[in-house]
């Protein structure tokens, strides 16, 4: 019995060691890990690839940045990663987490350099100093003009407000005035004029700063910009909630901005082109909802729209199989999945050759596409630095906003509180990079 146990333990140990070692490679079959939500990398595409490519098998794991970063630290990150915010490309590149794909792009048969939509995909380029220039580190799966407005015609009719123009952008002052007009209460229910998606505050702030010719940070990217006009931008978001034009602590939403809009609780949201496809689940959505371009800071000033850098795919710098992973990447962008995605209208394809496939049969789809294609011309990469991740801005702004709404701090103190923590994070980021 004792011998049997010893032999069993020995075999188990040997199997354990063997399983942990190199089992594939060279010319043999390889297994690649794709970290992506199922909605962006469907089981059907996965099976289709696996069937056609017995030498490169794919396994998908659910998207979890925290896990990917922890895996990276332990040297075992997924090969292909669904990248939620192209805005963070500089942060990841500066820490050596992503594979430079420029040479692959240059050689690719499927992705032609002159076919890439530079306006919408710029956030995936970085030259070490400036986003939108230099090497390629990925591509958006599709991109969107995320500050364009979708509005609820029924709520506008109830409030007796005129619909906004489909072609002429409002100023932010006009937008707030309109939002105030379409904010009302009926039957114990509150209807909000607008709602800023919590995660998008720094990106909308970034667009606003561009439009007044300012930056969110100081020139070296190590401090928040104390310019009064820039501070006013951050205060804009506080005021929407304080005034009750948007949800707040006393009147919260039961879902996120998009679901509350579709549920008929919000008159206008800034979510962009993709949201039109999402609205298709609402009855009579084509009659119920309308479109307007993203607001501007002044009629005479420049237009700027954001794509948050767009959700896309990148390749881990740790991958043992860069060629095989790029093969999957180019198939995803320009092959069967790319074509299928373009036809659904959930976002503008990164390749110009696929953009004619976007749906435009109905008036609803036509208008949202026209607005999107116009706004692509004014797209700029979001103003983040490589010193801190976007989540820090989002969470720290939320904390300052909550303190302000509870009456614990004044408007200016809330901005000070936000700036102080971000400045600290930026300084730590500098230290992390050894600069």
């Amino acid at each position, binding site marked *: 019995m004792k011998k049997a146990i010893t032999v069993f333990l020995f075999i188990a140990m040997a199997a354990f060691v063997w399983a942990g070692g190199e089992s594939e490679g060279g010319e043999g079959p390889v297994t690649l890990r794709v970290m992506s939500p199922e909605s962006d990398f469907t089981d059907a595409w996965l099976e289709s690839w696996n069937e056609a490519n017995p030498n490169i098998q794919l396994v998908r794991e659910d998207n979890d940045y925290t896990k990917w970063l922890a895996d990276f630290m332990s040297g075992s990150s997924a090969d292909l990663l669904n990248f939620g915010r192209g805005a963070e490309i500089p942060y990841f590149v500066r820490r050596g987490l992503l594979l430079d794909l420029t040479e692959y792009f240059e050689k690719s048969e499927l992705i032609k350099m002159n076919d890439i939509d530079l306006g919408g995909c710029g956030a995936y380029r970085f030259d070490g100093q400036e986003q939108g220039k230099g090497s390629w580190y990925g591509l958006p799966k599709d991109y969107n003009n995320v500050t364009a407005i979708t509005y609820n015609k029924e709520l506008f009719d109830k409030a007796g407000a005129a619909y906004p123009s489909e072609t002429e952008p409002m100023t932010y002052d006009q937008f707030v005035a309109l939002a105030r007009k379409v904010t009302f209460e009926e039957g114990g229910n509150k209807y909000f004029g607008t709602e800023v998606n919590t995660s998008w505050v720094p990106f909308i702030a970034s667009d606003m700063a561009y439009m007044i010719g300012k930056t969110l940070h100081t020139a070296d990217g190590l401090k928040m910009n104390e310019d009064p006009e820039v501070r006013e931008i951050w205060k804009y978001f506080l005021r929407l909630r304080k005034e009750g034009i948007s949800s707040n602590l006393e009147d919260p939403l*039961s879902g996120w901005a998009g679901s509350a809009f579709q549920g008929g609780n919000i008159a206008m949201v800034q979510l962009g082109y993709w949201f039109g496809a999402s609205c298709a689940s609402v009855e009579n959505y084509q009659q119920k909802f309308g479109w307007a371009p993203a607001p501007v800071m002044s009629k005479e000033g420049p237009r700027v729209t954001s794509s948050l850098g767009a959700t896309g795919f990148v390749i881990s710098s740790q991958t043992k199989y860069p060629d095989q992973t790029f093969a999957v990447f180019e198939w995803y962008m320009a092959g069967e999945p790319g074509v299928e995605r373009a036809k659904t209208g959930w976002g503008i394809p990164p390749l110009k050759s696929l953009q004619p496939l976007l749906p435009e049969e109905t008036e609803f789809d036509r208008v949202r596409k026209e607005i999107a294609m116009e706004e692509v011309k004014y797209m700029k990469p979001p103003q983040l630095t490589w010193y801190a991740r976007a989540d820090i801005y*989002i969470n720290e702004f939320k904390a300052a906003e909550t303190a302000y709404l509870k009456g614990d701090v004044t408007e200016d103190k809330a901005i000070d509180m936000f700036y102080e923590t971000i400045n600290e994070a930026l300084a730590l980021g500098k230290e*992390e990079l050894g600069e």
Partner: protein
Amino acid sequence: MKSLNRKTGFIAKENRRSFYTFIALWIIGFALFQVIPIFWGFRVSLTNRMAFSLVIKNVGLKNYIRAFSDTKVMVSIAQTFYYSLANTFIQVVLGLFLALLLEKRMRGHSIFRVMFYLPYVIPIVATGWIFRIFLDKNVGTLNLILTNLGLIEQKISWLGSYPLLSVLSANFWRVGWSLLIFLGGLSTIPHDLYDSAEVDGANYLKRVRIITIPFLSPFIAFQLVISFIYGMQMFIMPFILNPTPMRGGQLTSFDPPQETFFILARGYSIIFNDSRLAYGFAVLWINFLIVLIFSLIYTRLIKRYTYSEIEG
């Protein structure tokens, strides 16, 4: 005689060997996945390491000193402490009260026993979601009931205005564990003691005071320690009951409000959202030390104030 001794020695040796062989796997797992990471974390907490630091240097206790002067961390520790005390009180008092009720063998007591225990079987994440819907201002059942009963005129934003109470109420639902421990404790009390006390004229409350509570004291003490430790380790519930609306993605991507931003969540956020590995580990080590110190104090108090049939 010599041969018998040799045989006894051989059996003892075999027993020892079997014992260590059987516990070896658990010990290896415990060392690999608990002890080593904990001490690795301590080692990292003495450096300036961030997630992807290029230059790492030792900074001694700087991170610990910094944590004690960091208002946010201190608020998190205080809130976790309040929550743990309140949660311990609810778990012990309510669990004991329900156990005393169910012990009375009234009609249908076994159904109630299952009913009270059932919520504990439901995973904590599911409990959280049930309460998120229950407490929602616009579509929540609680506001609906209170409005229909005429107890409130305006719907209340429970999650936004009372975050700590929301988390406590969701955990109060999980009192089944405490109830089960107390029921087990009650079954160990000899019934003839109650009979004698009754003959001597002791009413129900007096019997509880002079017999039940002293006999249950080791169980109460155990519950106090366990509930407190669990309270100090509360992590996921505040994220689920976060008034900031979630949209797919990660549950932990938005920090909870200050009142329920407990210390483990704070440590997690510092490490994963802010990428400050060393500082986050220092914060988590502080929490570990707090739990350790309180557990030791509790253990001392248990020895002194609880009833035991074993001579100490």
